């Protein structure tokens, strides 16, 4: 075995579609006879520690500056924005697992996010309305029957769409535990069924992306109808009022939700990082890079995809369930296809295939977006024209997105590689489940035999 050293033949194999015949630079080599000792999960993934450290510091800083718990330097609405951003980071992490690791570009993940929001919104709205209704009925000479209470709640909630009865999908809305279960079950089941159908028929690549987009479009169109039972285009509102905490100031609620979001992000991050590490991660990335090969190794690829898809849908739903009480309102526009595309944009800008990249992308782009569209950015005088960022932000975002795709496919996360002088050994300027990751079709002969 003499040929197996670090000198590679200069006429190495061409990696199709990617960076030509370039060979990845050599990396630190494990010494011969590397000990068999298995390192712990965190030790093998040091970025998790760094991430948790950064998140804790951030949370601590915000807590100190918040109104309810500290100096009050940050306004309540800004705390809410930060809390929402953390939820967006969580859904971006889920998206990264599906796309960056498993190679499924889902253009429908915000549907799960929105469904989570709807599920928790149902309880928030029901419980809140119930309190109002009970307050009204207390003044009556005769105590109300359960039917009357339910009718009154129905009228209160659905008066806006000209209905008064609680639809069947509100059957569990009275119970927080049941509705919390719905947060997980409804999106999880949708992902399971949709994924099963899609993966079973081996729909892959852009076809799958278009199909997921169709899914979210269908869902949002459905919810736009008044007879969907979720108040049509009015959506669910007043979600910022938490039943049972009427007297708690929004400042306190906002920091509590911020903490909850931070905790959810931390837990979700670690859990997903664990799920995509080790052999599981190996198989998932294998599916991304060469699905057929994984299949011939005896893995039932569809189950894995379904597992990852459903898992990330559930995480997305949980993120949504935390997001919408902070946003206060949810309507079908929130799950329009465009939202999911933005999610993909965040992950791409942050850097695919690394969970912290997704977090950075989501936080960076969404905060920047609210700065620009919120009028925070100063206008630019060009003499003949004034660039108002509320009008031009999307143009900038669109073009910078093109630029990132073209010139920095690793996204912002790629900067960490430069800082670390660490070259990602697995990638050379190319990402994703496409030919870019050196996927080659095997078992086909190049030309039909004659």
């Amino acid at each position, binding site marked *: 075995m003499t040929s197996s050293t670090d000198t590679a033949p200069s006429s190495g194999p061409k990696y*199709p*579609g*990617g960076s030509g015949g370039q060979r990845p630079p050599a990396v630190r080599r494990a010494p011969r006879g590397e000990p068999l000792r298995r390192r712990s999960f965190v030790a093998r993934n040091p970025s998790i520690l760094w991430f948790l450290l950064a998140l804790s510091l951030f949370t601590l800083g915000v807590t100190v500056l918040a109104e309810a718990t500290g100096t009050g330097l940050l306004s309540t609405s800004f705390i809410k924005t930060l809390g929402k951003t953390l939820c967006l980071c969580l859904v971006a992490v889920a998206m990264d697992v599906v796309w960056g690791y498993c190679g499924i*570009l889902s253009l429908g993940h915000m549907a799960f996010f929105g469904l989570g929001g709807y599920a928790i919104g149902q309880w928030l709205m029901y419980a809140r309305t119930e309190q109002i209704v009970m307050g009204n009925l207390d003044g*009556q*000479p*005769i*105590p*109300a*029957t*359960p*039917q*009357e209470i339910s009718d009154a709640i129905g009228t209160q909630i659905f008066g806006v769409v000209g209905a008064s009865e609680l639809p069947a999908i509100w059957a569990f809305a009275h119970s927080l535990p049941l509705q919390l279960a719905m947060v997980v079950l409804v999106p999880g089941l949708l992902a399971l069924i*949709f994924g099963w*159908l*899609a993966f*079973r*028929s*081996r*729909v892959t*690549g*852009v*076809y799958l*992306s*278009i*199909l997921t987009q*169709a*899914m979210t*479009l*269908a869902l949002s*169109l*459905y919810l*736009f*109808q008044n007879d969907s039972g979720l108040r049509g285009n009015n959506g669910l509102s007043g979600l910022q009022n938490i039943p049972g905490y009427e007297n708690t100031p929004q400042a306190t609620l906002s920091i509590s939700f911020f903490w909850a979001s931070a905790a959810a992000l931390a837990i979700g991050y670690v859990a997903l990082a664990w799920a995509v590490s080790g052999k599981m991660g190996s198989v998932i990335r294998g599916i991304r890079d060469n699905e057929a090969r994984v299949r011939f190794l005896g893995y039932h690829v569809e189950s894995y995809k379904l597992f990852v898809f459903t898992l990330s849908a559930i995480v997305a739903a949980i993120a949504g369930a935390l997001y919408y009480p902070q946003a206060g309102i949810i309507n079908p526009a929130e799950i329009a*296809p*465009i939202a999911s*595309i933005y999610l993909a*944009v965040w992950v*791409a800008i942050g850097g695919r295939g690394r969970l912290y990249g997704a977090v950075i992308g989501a936080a960076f782009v969404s905060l920047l977006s609210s700065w620009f569209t919120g009028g925070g950015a100063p206008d630019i005088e060009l003499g003949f024209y004034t660039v108002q960022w509320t*009008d*031009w*932000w*999307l*143009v900038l*975002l*669109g*073009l910078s*997105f*093109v630029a990132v*795709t*073209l010139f920095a496919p690793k996204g912002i996360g790629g900067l960490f590689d430069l800082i670390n002088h660490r070259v990602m050994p697995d990638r050379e300027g*190319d*990402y*994703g*489940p*496409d*030919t*870019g990751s050196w996927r080659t079709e095997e078992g*086909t*002969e190049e030309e039909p035999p004659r």
Partner: protein
Amino acid sequence: MRLLTFLVVCLWLPVVAAAQDLQSILQTHAEEAASPSRRTVGTMLDDLAASGLPGVATFLERYQDRDVVQRAGDGLFFYATKSGDTYTLSDISTGEEVGTAPSSEITEIRPNGGVRREIAGTLVAFQLSDPDIERRQTAVEAIARSPSADQLAPLRTSIETETDPALLARKRQLAGILAASFADSTADRVAAIESLSGEVSVEVRAALNQILSSSTGVATALPDGNIARTFTPGSDLTEAEAYDQLVEEGLALPAPTRADIRNALAANIDGGRVGGVPVARLDNDETRDQAYGALAADGIVPPRIGAAEQSAALSAHVFYEIYDEDDPAITDAARTALSEVETRVGMGQMVDLSLDGLSLASIYFLAAIGLAITFGVMGVINMAHGEFIMLGAYTGYVVQLFVPNYTLSLFIALPLAFAVAFGAGVAMERLVIRWLYHRPLETLLATFGISIALQQLAKNIFGTQARPLTSPGWLDGAWVVNDVIQISYIRIAIFVLALIFLALILFILKRTRLGLEVRAVTQNPGMAASMGINPDRINMLTFGLGSGIAGIAGVAIGLYAQVTSEMGSAYIVQSFMTVVVGGVGNVWGTLAGASLIGGLQKGIEWFNPSNTLAAQTYMILFIILFIQFRPKGIVALKGRAAGD
């Protein structure tokens, strides 16, 4: 209304005096004219009609309207308008004012209802046989608007003399409709009704429905008459509805509602108790009924009518629907005829729906064919395709700003939109897509970035409100086959445009050097390059072609929908569906996909016309399921060439 129309028409015509003038005819029948009776007026009317004088119609109109007076002194007849105590008189032949007269000298002629019907009959006959075809048409349409029994005979008479074939057909049709309702004998009516069953027009359906008009009722026993049907409470109508009907007819006492009971209880609280039940316990229907029962027993409130009493009341009555027409033979015939008509209408609607589906399919085809070329032939996903459609539509709008002639501007806009979108496509291919070949998901995202930038750019330039793209006058209106089937010219034009592009694309791909090179590069870029084909150039041209067609589609869509910055995104998902369902890499596949999606959307809308959102939802669900069974689309490449 009809008379007024006649009046206006008549007054506009010059009144020419003839040898035998109106006045003299009237003087011949002076007695009948002055105090007409239904039995005697006929001869005078016949004479008038036979005279053929131009003023007769006007006279009859005004006669009917009680505008004609007789001057006591000479017995002459005039038209008169009364102001205060004086009448202004006009000559009945010329309509010229001839002077005034005090009311004492004037006798107003007041034809009674019977006489006026006679007059109307003659009048209609007169109009229907008028030498001027326009007046005949006006008369016929007036009859069609408000049919009545007395028009039947004159209409039938006029048919014999009618010369214009189209009007003759119309008169026959109308006579049939009138006969169905107004013929004298049952046999005649049944025959007329049966002859109507071949029609689909709204008029025929209205006439048949009119014959079948009915009313519902409730009574203790089934009344005499032509009963259409009886209702069984619980199956044909709900028991609550049935009981409400009883209450409405005064046949039963209203049952207090839950709210009534609650209010009654609230009004009768006595020392924390109602009817002996503590108020605190009244939080369910059972105790409330109990308390209310106690109150009712004391006579304080009306009795609560329970379910048993209600159903007893229901079973003691019969609910029925009775025809206004008494003769069952006629209603039976009408029902049969109506069901036949409705079958025909249903078939007509199917045809109409197919035409609608076809036109929608043409739009989807136009929107998707460009995408099919870039996506199918080149394997490139262009999310900005919708924005190229928008670009084309705005090009059309801008052209119309400078060229006010809509026809001319349309013919300038079509090639210009192609050029603009072609340029944009080529620029995008060179600047972005070229660097991302073989990375389809990244292409998807990069072109999406371009899509949002272009969309926002359009919003910044043209504003958020919709801009009109006006079609030339010759595209207004619709091609009407009958009352059921019609299609607007603009949709026909789009269909034709789609056909032209189908032919053009097939021609380019199959018959030209460019098409050959495109297919070569698609199948094996390396081999094509080695044979002297420049793949970069081919890719650029193909992409430009696909984008240019999107621009043309934009003009077409803009003509019937509005031009907004978001119009592209409205079509992009459908376009992708079209390509995916049809099968990638095949023009025929796109055609099949567009037909399927267009037809399906119209079909679902037909089942649930009120809800286009639901139609789209179900269509997408269908497509998701469709992909299950044909993952490669309708026209799938098989075997190794599919490259899976």
